[in-house]
Each structure stands twice: as structure tokens, then as C-alpha cells.
């Protein structure tokens, strides 16, 4: 593979012809001897390899944290890659580093650079003055095995004090040029000011024609599952980096229809005003689903195509009656998501087809969209069982719409067709709901595995379905009554 990728690595311009599929982590550590970025798990679960990726958006630099262990070099063209070394000031610690030192937020130190990256990013991106909770969400993808996080929380509180209301640097949150203000506050090195100009000087990537251009071993989107499963093959394989095709990104509303580009990330989905309008709690759901660095990479289409029976975003898209659009050359084809899966990890898609977008109808007013998930660890764990629901219940208690899903209780993500049919048009009551659960029960077929016994999953599925209804219509189905069964 002979693509030349040009980008800025910290304060240095880089042109490289390493394989497109090579991981940024390996490139940093092995090719550049930038060893501050650590390898902890190589599957995005520990955050020790966190870096920032910056690009020019509407004329200003926007940075996102990602795990470099799941990010291919081939996607870095025209970007600013910031490793921990690129955040260091020449002769002193920045305030984030200083707070971590003052509060002994670092013990063995192996996770520390990742934490610093996440916390610095939060200072660069926070919409309002920083809070402890904001820091905690920013480093929610970083594991520390030594401190129990208490000292890291104390360091965060120091920063809240310095940069929050009344603090020495309280004014920077009003600054139009946040990064400039952070440079002035000694939080970022001065070279960041040069980046927009530097990146704009990089031209479009020249894809050198390959001898055998049709042979693609892997299509790589976010890579968050693909690199976990095939990480050792990808650097040696012919890969097609889908993120070089920005036309497949973004959310567009046409009337009451939402068109979601296949490469839309979890985070882009959660940040969309159009989505927030009908799922106001989406950010809380996303916090359970994945860490920010993964949400910045993972695409919704990837989650669907990965076909895990417990895909969290899949559960939500399924409840929303999403239709998938596939392209093969000039031909396009539509498939309803609820008819897409044929069996465990098998689905209605030709290998040469590429999903281009997902289409769904914006739910009618008065419709609630709910998501529940239970895993061993509350956040950022793969669900034992998950469930999403789209529910509209009239003031008279009539179920006008019930689209219910379950994950982890069958070989595929499950859309509860019979249960929904049974509920639609009926007046909701505790008796009716109990009957609905009976029907839901016939639709599942869980098996025992590392995430739990079949019996547990069956029970959990019941509880999570109930949780939706209790949230949607507590006056019709009360939690106390459901607990008393």
C-alpha cells in the first residue's frame, strides 16, 4: 500500500507511507519513539493510549479525543495528531499536569498520560465553565488501577476552582478563541496557534493508484470493533478507509424524515439537535454505552453491521423503525432494520454493498424514546441485556405506538413484533402489561454465557421492558406494583 499521508504530529510535519491500516499507537511508539502514549489493552477499554485528533472545522481547530489503539494512520491525512508530548510546555507543567502532581493523581503513572489528554481536551472543548462531573465524563474512558480515582477527582476540583467562576482564569470561557485563551493561560503550547494555517496548507490526499485496486480486504469505518477483532490483520491488509468519504457523514432532516449518514458517529448522533428533539436523554444513554473516545470513532452503521445481538445503538435504531440504504455501484436498495438480521451475525447484505445512510421517521409529538441497559459495570461495558422502546400513550391510556426491542436474549437484536402488536390500540394497565410480558417472553431465546445465565437474561429482559413502561406511564403501571409480583 503506497498512499502518502501528510499530517502534523504535535509540532512537526509528517509525511509517511506506512500502511493505511497501521495503528496510530504503533506509529507513535515504534516509528516515532513517542512513548508517552501507552498500550494497555489494544481494544479501547483502558484509555492509556488516548490522543487528540484536530481538524479545521469552519475555519477553527476542533479536537476530539480518540484511542490511538483503534485509529488507523491512513485516516490522519490533513489532521493534527496530538500525543501527550504535544501538550507539554517546554519548561513547566501545564495547569492540568500541575493539579495532578499536587493531588498525587498519579501512582504507577502508566495511565496518567491518557488522563492528562482527556482532561486537557475537556478544557479545550467544555461548553461552559468546567465542573467535576464534566471532568469525570471526559475521563470516563480512562482506567486507573492505582488511585481509585479519588485523587484524580481532587485534581479536577482544583481545576474547577482555578478556571471556574471567581477563579484566576474564569474569563476564558467567554473567549471567542478558546484555544488562544488556553495558550495564554499556559494550558496549551503556543504552536497550536499555527495549526489552522498549517493544516490548510496540506493538499488533498493523492491516492497512488494500486496495481490491484479492487482487492479490498476490509472496509474500515470507526474501527472500534474491527480493530478489536482483526487488529493483527489490518496493518498487513488492503483496507479502504471509509472516513475519507465525508459525504457519508452527518444528519439531515427532510420534513419529518431523518437521514443519517452511515459514517455518523455515536457522538455526532447524540449531539444532533434533531435527535435531541425526540430523545432528550440521549447523552445520558450514550454515557452508559461507550466512552467519549469510542463514541467519537464508533459509527452507527458499524454497530448495525457488526450485528452483535447486544449492540446498544442498534437497539435504539431498531426501536425507531429505521430503514437502511445500501449502495452497490449506481444501484441502491432499502431494507428495514427489523427485517435485516437473518441469524447470528448474518444479515441481508451483499459483500459488495456499502451502507450509505439510515432513514427514520421523526417520532410524533408525545412519543417517548427510552433506553435501558444492564451490564456488570454500569458504564462502558457490553450489555448483558439492553432494551429500547418507542412508546406513545394517549391521555386516556391507549397505547398508540409501541416499538420494543431487546438485545442479548437471542442470536440477533430482537424487535418484539408480537408484543408490540398485542399492545397497540389497547388501554394500558398492569394486567395488560403482565400479559404483554408473557408474550415478550415467547419471543426471546437467551443462552448462558460470560455475561450471564439464560435465566438471568430472561428475568432482566422482563425488568428492563417494565422500566420503560414505568417511565412512560407511571400512573398506569406503577413500579411498586411491578416489584410486588
Amino acid at each position, binding site marked *: 500500500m503506497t498512499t502518502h499521508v501528510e499530517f502534523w504530529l504535535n509540532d512537526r510535519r509528517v509525511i509517511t507511507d506506512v500502511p493505511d491500516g497501521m495503528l496510530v499507537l504503533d506509529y507513535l511508539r515504534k516509528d516515532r519513539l513517542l512513548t508517552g502514549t501507552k498500550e494497555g489493552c489494544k481494544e479501547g477499554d483502558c484509555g492509556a493510549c488516548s490522543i487528540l485528533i484536530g481538524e479545521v472545522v469552519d475555519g477553527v481547530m476542533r479536537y476530539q479525543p480518540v484511542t490511538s489503539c483503534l485509529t488507523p494512520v491512513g485516516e490522519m491525512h490533513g489532521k493534527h495528531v496530538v500525543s501527550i508530548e504535544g501538550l507539554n510546555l517546554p519548561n513547566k507543567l501545564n495547569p492540568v499536569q500541575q493539579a495532578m502532581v499536587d493531588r498525587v493523581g498519579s501512582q504507577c503513572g502508566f495511565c496518567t498520560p491518557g488522563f492528562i489528554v482527556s482532561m486537557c481536551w475537556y478544557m479545550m472543548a467544555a461548553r461552559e465553565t468546567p465542573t467535576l462531573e464534566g471532568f469525570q465524563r471526559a475521563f470516563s474512558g480512562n482506567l486507573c488501577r492505582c488511585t481509585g480515582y479519588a485523587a484524580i477527582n481532587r485534581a479536577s476540583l482544583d481545576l474547577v476552582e482555578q478556571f471556574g467562576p471567581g477563579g484566576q482564569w474564569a474569563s476564558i470561557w467567554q473567549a471567542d478563541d478558546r484555544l488562544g485563551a488556553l495558550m495564554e493561560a499556559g494550558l496549551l503550547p503556543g504552536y497550536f496557534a499555527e495549526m489552522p494555517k498549517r493544516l490548510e496548507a496540506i493538499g488533498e490526499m493523492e491516492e497512488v493508484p494500486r496495481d490491484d485496486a479492487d482487492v479490498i480486504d476490509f472496509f474500515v469505518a470507526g474501527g472500534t470493533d474491527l480493530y478489536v477483532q482483526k487488529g493483527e490483520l489490518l496493518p498487513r491488509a488492503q483496507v479502504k478507509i471509509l472516513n475519507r468519504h465525508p459525504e457519508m457523514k452527518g444528519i439531515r432532516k427532510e420534513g419529518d424524515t431523518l437521514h443519517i449518514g452511515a459514517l455518523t458517529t455515536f457522538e455526532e448522533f447524540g449531539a444532533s439537535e434533531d435527535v435531541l428533539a425526540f430523545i432528550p436523554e440521549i447523552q445520558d444513554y450514550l454515557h452508559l454505552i461507550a466512552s467519549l473516545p469510542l463514541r467519537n470513532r464508533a459509527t452507527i452503521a458499524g454497530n448495525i453491521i457488526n450485528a452483535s445481538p447486544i449492540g446498544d445503538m442498534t437497539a435504539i435504531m431498531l426501536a425507531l423503525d429505521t430503514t437502511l440504504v445500501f449502495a452497490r455501484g449506481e444501484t441502491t436498495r432499502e431494507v428495514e432494520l427489523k427485517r435485516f438480521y437473518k441469524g447470528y451475525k448474518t444479515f441481508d447484505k451483499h459483500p459488495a454493498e456499502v451502507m450509505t445512510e439510515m432513514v427514520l421517521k421523526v417520532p410524533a409529538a408525545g412519543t417517548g424514546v427510552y433506553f435501558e441497559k444492564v451490564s456488570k459495570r454500569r458504564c462502558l461495558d457490553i450489555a448483558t441485556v439492553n432494551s429500547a422502546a418507542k412508546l406513545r400513550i394517549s391521555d386516556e391510556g391507549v397505547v398508540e405506538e409501541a416499538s420494543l426491542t431487546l438485545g442479548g436474549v437471542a442470536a440477533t437484536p430482537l424487535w418484539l413484533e408480537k408484543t408490540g402488536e398485542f399492545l397497540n390500540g389497547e388501554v394500558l394497565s398492569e394486567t395488560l402489561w*403482565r400479559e404483554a410480558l408473557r408474550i415478550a417472553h415467547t419471543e426471546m431465546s437467551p443462552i448462558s454465557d*460470560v455475561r450471564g445465565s439464560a435465566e438471568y437474561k430472561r428475568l432482566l429482559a422482563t425488568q428492563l421492558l417494565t422500566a420503560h413502561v414505568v417511565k412512560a406511564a407511571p400512573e398506569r403501571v406503577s413500579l411498586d406494583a411491578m416489584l410486588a409480583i
Partner: protein
Amino acid sequence: MTEKHLDAELHTRGTSLYVDDVAPPAGMLHAAIYGSPVAHGRVKALRLDEARNAPGVVAIYTGEDVPGENQIGPVLPDEPLLATDLVEYHGHPMAMVVAETPEDARHALTLIEVDIEPLDVITCPRVAHEAGHILGTPRTFAMGDTTAAFADCDIVVEGRSDVGGQEHLYLETQRARAVPTEGDRIRVYSSTQSPYAVQKACARILGLPTHRVEVDVIRLGGGFGGKEDQATSWACLAALACQITGRPTQLVLHRLDDLRMTGKRHPYSADYKIGLSKEGKILAFEVKHFQNAGAKTDLSLAVLERTLFHSTNSYFIPNVRAYAASCRTNLPPNTAFRGFGGPQGMFVIESAIAHAAEVMGVDRSEIQKKNLIQEGQSFPYGQQAERARARRTWEEAETNFEIGSWQKEIADYNAKNAATKKGLAAMPICFGISFTATFLNQASALMHVYTDGSVSLSTGGVEMGQGLSSKLVRIAAQALRISPHRIKVETTNTTRIANMSPSAASATTDLNGSATILAAEELRRRFRELLARELGVQDAENITFEDEKVFYCDEPTDWTWEKLVAHAYLSRVSLSAHAFFATPNVWFDKQKETGRPFAYHVFGTAWTEVTVDMLRGTYTVDRVRLVHDLGRTLNENVDLGQIEGGLAQGIGWMTLEELAFAEDGRLTSHALSTYKAPDGDALPDEIDVRLLEDADNPVGPFGSKAVGEPPLMYGIGTFFALRAALRAAAPEAELAFNAPMTPEKVMMQLHHNRLRTLWETPPTSTAAPAAAGE
């Protein structure tokens, strides 16, 4: 004096160095390990030809290529470096590929083929015990007469208690780099808590005298016991490849291999019987511990011993009979993990007390409080409690945290809420400090003073994040009466310190700090002699040092540290000192199972509050408040970090960290996606740590106490708090003493009848089409 962690500035800038961060020497090779694909079997054939021909492969080595002895067992010689005829656990190392790149090495692993005749796989310690698969000899600690005492008890309950293992999950996986020096000499950079163990094992493997192998350790990216003994094999493998190829060789375990191939905290199963008076005095306690040792002895026998030492936790029980057997199973050899068998011992007595309290209808804490050990009372191994602070920490917790009103708040909450229930539980701890293998309680320090007044300090202690270097600097500065900025702690190196004990048993600062003090005292003795000559006085004992200045009879002189050092050099007075420390007054007689194994005990009391979501079976750990006995702290921030971090690991062990093995012995919680350690969200936002004041420890350096392990055991309180919450919801439910208390266990114990209530006959689900993977 600094209250910081000395490495923190480097850590936050990403410039601190771990084994593989040091720029690689030219021509360095990379190794990868082939592990057995089955948990037990006889090796019929190992086919390596295809892998040997794979791109980049330099060589593949098996046990037959070991030039010395193919043996690394640290206590008993039962562990080959590379298995040859018999494999005894899934992942048992069988061959090593050495290649030009790590990717080439790992790719070649996929081309290795093996024929193994499968043998029966045992994963349960009780089954192994029944079958007589016992490592070493079972041990029994006894005091008084339990049989007679049970006859006098008003309440006697019996039961079973099970506790799971725990993955260390050091963020830095196992790794080593071996570099040839000249002739048959070799230098090994290892991420080990035990450089001497690595040195000895490498020498044994290579057939060399020990002095030919130099081991150097900069720091560890976490150890927690997992690199006390189990760093050794990886260092030996790198050394083996280096010795044969003559090229530097590095071995960094992939996370999945580290999880699969290394041992963990020992799971235990136990039977207990406890007898009490109706007033709640514990009169008799019997316990049988079945330790799941895994396939090889490793450190299991020492871990087993510590289980016995802590079988009565903080309590005085006049009649005790504690039996423990190390049971050999087909899991990776389990090993040291913070607490070293102590937590498993404590979990059983706490289960027995909880069981008795429920039968008696009293709060568990009432029984706990009534039985706390007091000054002069004996532990079942004959040692008497000295400076016993079990009761002091309990009472300070009671006052500081207003336990009475806290308990009432919880009861009120539970009376008003059905959807969520709260639980509150106390957890006193008492942990003995010293290696129970008495001979290990020794350490050395080597101190060099350079003519500019700067100081180099080497000890046998390893920095693994616990803050050893920070404490050693503090100790050396205080002992020399100079500024800490003059002192640098060196890497841990076997050529500077010989025969070092592992950095373990919480004793690293005690031992190496005490040796450091002795080295400083030797230097000061020489300086006083010199100064007495220079000052023309006879009474050298009246020469003192403070703030880098010299005083005579409390009057300042014009001698400063820098002047003194420079003058000492010109006067040909040695500016280097080596000192040796051995913990006094510790011993143990294994024949009689009595002695004084510990220099002292660490005490403390924690209270934990949890909330359980009754619908979902999930929970949060809301707050932990504790009073801890640190002696006189050497570095309050570092000690606080040890307490909070230990507690976090204890909470993880009791809640979500669940090791899962399939019946065929395969680890199914095999990645960070299936084995979950606590993230920030899983831990309490409120951790209130109070240190016991006025609690000097005359036998610790500058009055301090060890801090590494004991706080982990506060985490056990989480299990009992969760149990209390479940009890509040379901007073009659059958609740097992089976940790960790995962959301699954919460749900199944709360609602096990629910499925039947909802559906008379739940359909069986064995006909599912396929595995529900990711």
C-alpha cells in the same frame, strides 16, 4: 517536606520510562509465546516447521532448548519454564517465537500446530481436594478446644462461603528486555517486583552463576502482587532468546495473553461453623479453607498461610480451629495479590458473623464490636495483640461518622422506599505486617554521597507506583538532615543490592527505609568522627546535624553539608555506606504453628453505604467512611492514595470483577471487554478517610506503618452492605455468601421466584441458534 509523588511530574508529561519505552538497541528481536490450547493434556506432537519458515522468524524455542535447568518454581521445583510433555492449564507456555518484529512473532504463533491427548480438567478446589490433588501439606491453626466450646454455645451456625479470584490488571502488562553484554553475561530489564527472583531464575535457566545475570528495574506500571513471582518467566524467556541468538530480545505480553497465561488472586471455598453466647460473644470458630491454587505451586503455600493468619480478622476468639489446603486445579497458577490470602480468610469470618447475626436477629455490627481483639489477647497463632487499635478505630469511626444516626437514616429510607433499598455495613480490619517467611524480612541500602553534596540511594525496593521512592527520599533526607532535593533514588539493580527480598507484603518501605536510616547513621558516625578531629573536641556525640548545618553542643558551627562532604573526601573518609536491616523479634515455628510472625498489626474500621435498584438489580456504592491506623505518616498524600486505591480494588473484587472459566478451563472473561475493573463511575464519590492520630509505631521507620495491603480489605464491607440492602427488601430470601456480588447475583437472589410467578413454566432455552457473542 514534599507531600508529592516524586515521579508524578514525569508521569504527567509522559516522560517516565517503562521497560519498552527505552529506545530499542539496534537489532532487537521480539518474542511471543505459544500457550497450550487445552487446560490439561499430554503433548503428543508440537509442529513448528511452518512457523519457523514464516516471514521475520529468527528462531522458535521449546523446553528442550533451555541450556540450564528448565525450571522456575520459586518455592517447589514444579514449574518448567516451557512445558514439554504435560500441559496443565489453558495458556501454559509451550514455545517461544523470536522474530524481527512483534507482529512477525505473533503471526508465526498462528502457524504452530499441536497434538495433545486431553486429560480430565478440574477447576473446582473442592473437587481437587476430594481427589487428593493437594500442594504441600494442609495446615491447621488451633487454639483452645472448639468441640468443648460449641457445647457451651447458645447459638451455633454453619455454612459455606465462596469468594472469587481477581485479575491484577496492572495497566502495564508483563514485559522484559534482555541485552547481551560480553561473554556469557547478560543484562535483563524487567518489570518485576522481585529482581532477585528474576536474577536467580535466569541464572538457573541459562546454567550460569547468579552473578552473570544483572537485573535492572526502573519502575512498574502497576504490580499489585502480579509481578512478585510471575514476572519471572517472561524475563527468563527474553534472556533465553538473548543468550542463544546473541541479540537483544524483548517480550511484551499482549493483554489477552497476559490475562490468559498469568495467575490471579486465589479463589477460595470454605466451610465454617461459629458458636456464640446469647450476648453475642464469639466462643468458638471452625473453618476449612479450600484454596484454588491453579496448576503450579508458585506462592500458593505462603498465601495459604496468610489466610490462616487472618482467619479471625480483628476479633478475639478463644477457641479456634482453622484448616487450610492448597488444591491443585487446571487453572493458571494463582499468585500473590494485594492482601495475599488475608482477604479470603477475613471474608469467611465476616460471613459467619453475618450469618449468626441474622439468626440472632441483631445487627451484624453489634457482634463485630463485642469481639474486637484487645491488648494482650492472643491470635490463634500465639502472637499477642500489642498496641491493639481495633477498638480505638472502631470507636473513632462510631463517633466521627455518627453511626447511630446513620443507621437510623438507612432504616428510615428503607421504610419509605420500595424501588431502591440501602445497606450499611462495618468492616474492621487487622493485618499483620512482615513476610510470614521470616527470612525474607531483611533489606539493604547503598548510599553514595558525591563531593558536590548530592546523594545517590539504592535499595532492594521496587517503585511500582506505591510511592516508595518518595518515602525513601523523605527518610534519607530526615536521616541525613539535608534537603530532599539532594537525594536521588536509583533504579533497583542486582549489582548494587544483592539477594533482595521482593517488594511485597506491604513491608518494602519498612525494610528498605530502615536500611536507609542505618546507612545514613553510618555516614553521620564517620562525619562526627571527622568533625571531632577538626573541631578539636573529644565528645563526638555532642556533634549534631540539622538543616544541612553542623552543631556542637547545640551551638552552630561554620560547617555546612557541602563543606563537610568536600572535606571528608579530601580527608579520605569514605562517602559511601552500605547498611543491612533485619526485622528484630519475628519468628514462627511451623511444627507447632505458633510464634510471633508479625512485627506489628495495622488496624482500621470502615463503614460502607450502598443503594440497590430493586427493579434492575444494579447498585451504587454511595460512600465509604473509615478510620485507619497509619502510625505516623511519611507522606500523607501518598498514603491517602494507597488507602483509596486499595479500597477501590477491594470494592472491585467484591462487586463487578468476576473471573469466569469455562468447564474446560478456558478463561472466558478473557479481555478488558469481559473482565471489568472499576471505572470512576463504579466507585463512591465520597470516600472519607480519617487517620488515627497519636498512633506512633515504635518499630516502623520514623514511627510509620505499612499501608499497601490493609486498605483493600475495607472493600469486603461492600459485600455485606449489599447483603444488608437485599435483606431489607427480602428478609426471608436465601442469600449466599458468594462474592463477587454481581448484578446477576443481586437479581437472581431477589427475584428468583419471579419467573415462575409470571410464567408457570418458563420455556427452556437450550435450543438457541448460536452463541450471543459481540
